[in-house]
């Protein structure tokens, strides 16, 4: 090879890493670790890893350089949701530093394992009991270091990227971090000038002594501030929304310039000197193990080094999910490893009860479970009598019984970057380069698998090529750590093929539901009974139906039912909400049609009859979306509008996120569906931190749930997932994107429960109902591509 600097053998690892940092321009991604950790670290060449410049931090979140560059540590993973920008905005708002000089940088999971958060940050304004702005209690309190619920008390608090919670939970302690840093910078300035603290103020990184007009900068006093403790940090207050200046403004994502030049470092891009690649095949039927493989057949293939048997990853490390055992081939390049692996004969031991599973018998089992006693979650009034009386009165045609059953398939995240991780295990240290939504858990896994203490585990966080649900990362880290532990001293980069990524992910559970309603003579529900069923381990079983019906009904019962299957289920985008929203909103449409009423006004009336705490916000959402869409104005033949409510928390938790969407859809006589227009009315609560990010998330979720509605399904055939690449698991392209998306934000008087994952669920009921209006055909199982949509 010639004329190629990148692999020039003379370059040391340090050069490579610092070149990588330089190439990213102003932003530094990955390859960073706190100085003292770097000092402890050696690599095979004896050189230190890349370190940050010799600048002392103000606190664990904020470093101010002499040139006023402010490094803000980000404890969540950037996977397209804009967390690098929104989290930095929350710190910067309080710090009052120059936004154009803010540089996000991943927080150290290693350090998080060794230091605790300052005591005064554990309970926030109002001491955590109540949010002074009416938002109720923040969803965290005091927890242990790695509490499984809520937010740990370790240095960087929650390092998980999940539950749409980065902004929702982070704003308390991130605003506090910015405020504390600012006050210490002001204290340092006051001290150096010998003036009272009360006489100094700051804006845009410039500190002014008000009486004299004398100025200095954050950069100039940062070193002193780093040594100036705050005398009474517990008295620090954070800004309420009315005082925000940066938060609430539309800010472009700070990492976009890197993403348009190919310079972002994702996990897959990590390359270390001496690194070998691992391609993996695990049993496609979950729970399966390796019976035999013939490494001799491929031993002499180009680049092949060795084979490593991988046991079933310890379920206790991966949220109690059972994946499969398999085998990895280590080679000089991934393509060589993968090519050889594909040629290697492998036999599996497959649990026969798992291999006997298929979509049809699993669906039948779930449907059957609906008739067995389930867990009754809500039982208000007397459903049995209401239905019995309804049946009696039905003879006189005064009461109508409506019943419908719905189905949703297994669905994977199918993020664009296949699972991967690079791991180097040495005698008493583990280094992991990874895009990971649970670094604190991966740190623990590494320690458990290698026997090396957590304090010697270092994660070098990379951007993720899509997330869409935390445990979709599956056992990528655990497999890589296992393989690297068998090859101590050699960095191993594990990469899943796309097909293997479909085996390594968890799935949103297959689900069924049966809803029944008794309507009075005017078409209003007297009783509604909801039964849902999915895998026993599926999260989100109570979504959308819990505590109270969102639509007024005097008698309401909700029960959940379950079966135990072998497909590992997890938290795909929206968790339990999307399927349950499909059931609920579809059923309300069916009731409205049965009652001969307008589906918008029918919803409106039923919500206004409830006593739900966010009733007015739900009505505002519906009214706004209807008005935006021109609801009620005529459409050409073959087109229809459908409306739906989207909410999380409307039954009253102190947080809620409420929106409504209207979908305008056409269906050709040949059955081609076109989503023409989406009108979104979305609340902003007290304020959105970065409204541009929210817009982008909403646009993306519209297409996400369009895909769920129209195209996507994973079927189980002989115990394995049948659709395992983008030929059989289709992703919509730009030609299906709706030409019109209109988004309106409206203010409400509470904090949001986040919005990163469960908006746009109404695409499902919306398109299905538009298809019904146009074709007269009501389909209750997704995706709609399975059905005949022709008409006329």
């Amino acid at each position, binding site marked *: *090879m*010639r*004329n*190629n600097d*990148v*692999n020039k053998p003379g370059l040391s690892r340090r050069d490579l890493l610092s070149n990588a940092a330089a190439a990213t321009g102003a932003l530094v991604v990955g390859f960073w670790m706190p100085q003292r950790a770097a000092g402890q670290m050696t690599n095979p060449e004896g050189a230190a890893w890349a370190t940050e410049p010799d600048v002392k931090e103000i606190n664990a979140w904020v470093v101010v350089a002499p040139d006023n560059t402010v490094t803000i540590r980000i404890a969540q993973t*950037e996977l*397209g*949701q804009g967390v690098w920008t929104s989290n930095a905005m929350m710190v910067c708002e309080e710090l009052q530093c120059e936004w154009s000089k803010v540089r996000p940088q991943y927080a150290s999971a290693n350090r998080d394992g060794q230091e605790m958060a300052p005591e005064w940050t554990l309970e926030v304004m109002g001491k955590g009991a109540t949010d002074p702005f009416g938002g109720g209690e923040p969803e965290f309190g005091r927890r242990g270091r790695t509490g499984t619920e809520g937010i740990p008390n370790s240095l960087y608090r929650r390092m998980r990227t999940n539950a749409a919670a980065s902004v929702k939970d982070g704003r308390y302690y991130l605003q506090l971090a910015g405020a504390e840093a600012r006050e210490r910078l002001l204290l340092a300035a006051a001290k150096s000038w010998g003036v009272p603290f009360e006489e100094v103020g700051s804006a845009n990184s410039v500190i002014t002594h008000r009486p004299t007009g004398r100025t200095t900068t954050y950069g100039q006093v940062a070193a002193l501030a780093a040594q100036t403790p705050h005398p009474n940090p517990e008295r620090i207050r954070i800004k309420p929304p009315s005082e925000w200046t940066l938060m609430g403004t539309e800010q*472009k*994502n700070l*990492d*976009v310039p*890197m*993403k*348009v*030049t*190919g*310079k*972002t470092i*994702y996990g*897959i*891009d990590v*390359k270390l000197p001496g690194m070998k690649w691992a391609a993996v095949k695990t049993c496609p039927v979950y729970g399966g193990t390796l019976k035999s493989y013939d490494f001799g057949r491929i031993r002499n293939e180009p680049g092949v080094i060795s084979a490593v048997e991988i046991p079933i990853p310890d379920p206790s490390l991966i949220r109690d999910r059972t994946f499969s055992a398999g085998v990895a081939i280590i080679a000089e*390049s*991934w*393509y060589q490893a993968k090519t050889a692996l594909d040629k290697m004969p492998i036999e599996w031991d497959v649990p026969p009860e798992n291999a006997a599973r298929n979509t049809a018998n699993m669906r039948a089992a779930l449907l059957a479970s609906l008739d067995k006693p389930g867990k009754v979650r809500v039982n208000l009034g007397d459903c049995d009598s209401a239905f019995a009386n309804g049946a009696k009165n039905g003879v006189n045609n005064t009461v109508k019984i409506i019943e419908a059953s719905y189905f949703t398939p297994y669905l994977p995240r*199918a*993020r*664009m*970057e*296949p699972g991967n991780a690079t791991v180097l295990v040495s005698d008493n240290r583990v280094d992991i380069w990874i895009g990971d939504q649970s670094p604190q858990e991966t740190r623990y896994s590494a320690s458990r698998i290698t026997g090396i203490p957590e304090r010697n585990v270092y994660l070098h966080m990379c*951007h993720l*090529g*899509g*997330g*869409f649900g935390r445990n979709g990362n599956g056992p990528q880290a655990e497999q890589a750590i296992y393989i690297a532990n068998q090859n101590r001293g050699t960095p191993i980069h594990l*990469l899943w*093929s*796309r097909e293997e990524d479909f085996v390594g992910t968890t799935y949103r559970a297959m689900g069924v539901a049966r809803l029944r309603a008794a309507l009075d003579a005017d078409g209003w529900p007297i009783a509604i009974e909801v039964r849902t069923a999915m895998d026993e381990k599926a999260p989100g079983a109570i979504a959308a139906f819990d505590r109270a019906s969102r639509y007024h009904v005097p008698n309401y019962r909700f029960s959940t039912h379950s079966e135990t299957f072998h497909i590992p289920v997890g938290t795909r985008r929206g968790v339990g909400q999307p399927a349950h929203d499909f059931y609920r909103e579809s059923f309300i449409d069916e009731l409205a049609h049965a009652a001969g009423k307008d589906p918008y006004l029918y919803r409106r009336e039923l919500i206004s009859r409830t006593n739900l705490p966010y009733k007015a916000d739900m009505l505002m959402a519906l009214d706004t979306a209807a008005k935006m869409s021109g609801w009620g104005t005529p459409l050409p033949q073959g087109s229809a509008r459908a409306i739906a409510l989207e909410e999380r928390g409307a039954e009253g938790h102190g947080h809620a996120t409420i929106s409504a969407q209207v979908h305008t859809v056409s269906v050709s006589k040949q059955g081609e569906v076109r989503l023409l227009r989406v009108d979104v009315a979305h609340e902003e609560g007290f304020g959105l931190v970065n409204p*541009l990010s929210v817009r*982008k*998330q909403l*646009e*993306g*979720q*519209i297409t*996400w749930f369009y*895909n769920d509605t129209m195209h996507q399904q994973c079927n189980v055939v002989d115990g394995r997932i049948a659709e395992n*690449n*983008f*030929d059989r698991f289709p*992703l919509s*392209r*730009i*030609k299906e*994107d*709706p*030409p019109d*998306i209109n988004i309106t934000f409206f203010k409400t008087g509470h904090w949001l429960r986040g919005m990163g994952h469960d908006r746009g669920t109404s695409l499902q009921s919306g398109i299905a109902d538009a298809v019904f209006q146009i074709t007269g055909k009501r389909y209750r199982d997704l995706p709609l591509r399975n059905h005949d949509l022709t008409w006329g």
Partner: protein
Amino acid sequence: MAIDLTVNGVRHSVDVAPETPLLWVIRDQLGLTGTKFSCGIAQCGACTLHIDGQPVRSCSYPVSSAAGKTVTTIEGLSPDGTHPVQLAWIELDVPQCGYCQSGMIMSVAALLSKRRNPSDAEIDTEITNACRCSTYHRIRKAIRLAASKMSSQGRL
């Protein structure tokens, strides 16, 4: 077997099996990691680069077929990230996770180099890359913006 190819204006001679997909030569041998692997079967377009100006899915394109040809990757689309498509992408804040965007930008740059002002139908037909974050709405607007930037620059 040594194969000669020119990537982003630099001539290279690589010693790999001739059937090796160009993607892996670009990423592993040449260290240009902006071009991404995702499906491996030429479906999603994350690996799109240009060969003699034409968009190609490099995960399924043998390196031997690129011998003697000119390859351009996202790193070589412009010297300083100021190709009109890149500028439009920044202005409209298009990327989310960004993983598909190198391929997407290369597809769009190729389209705009042959069609100065493509119709919606042409965009629908030509831009077949997949984006899982679904940034399509901004992509279409950014294609229009890039087209207007290019025509005001008199650039083809």
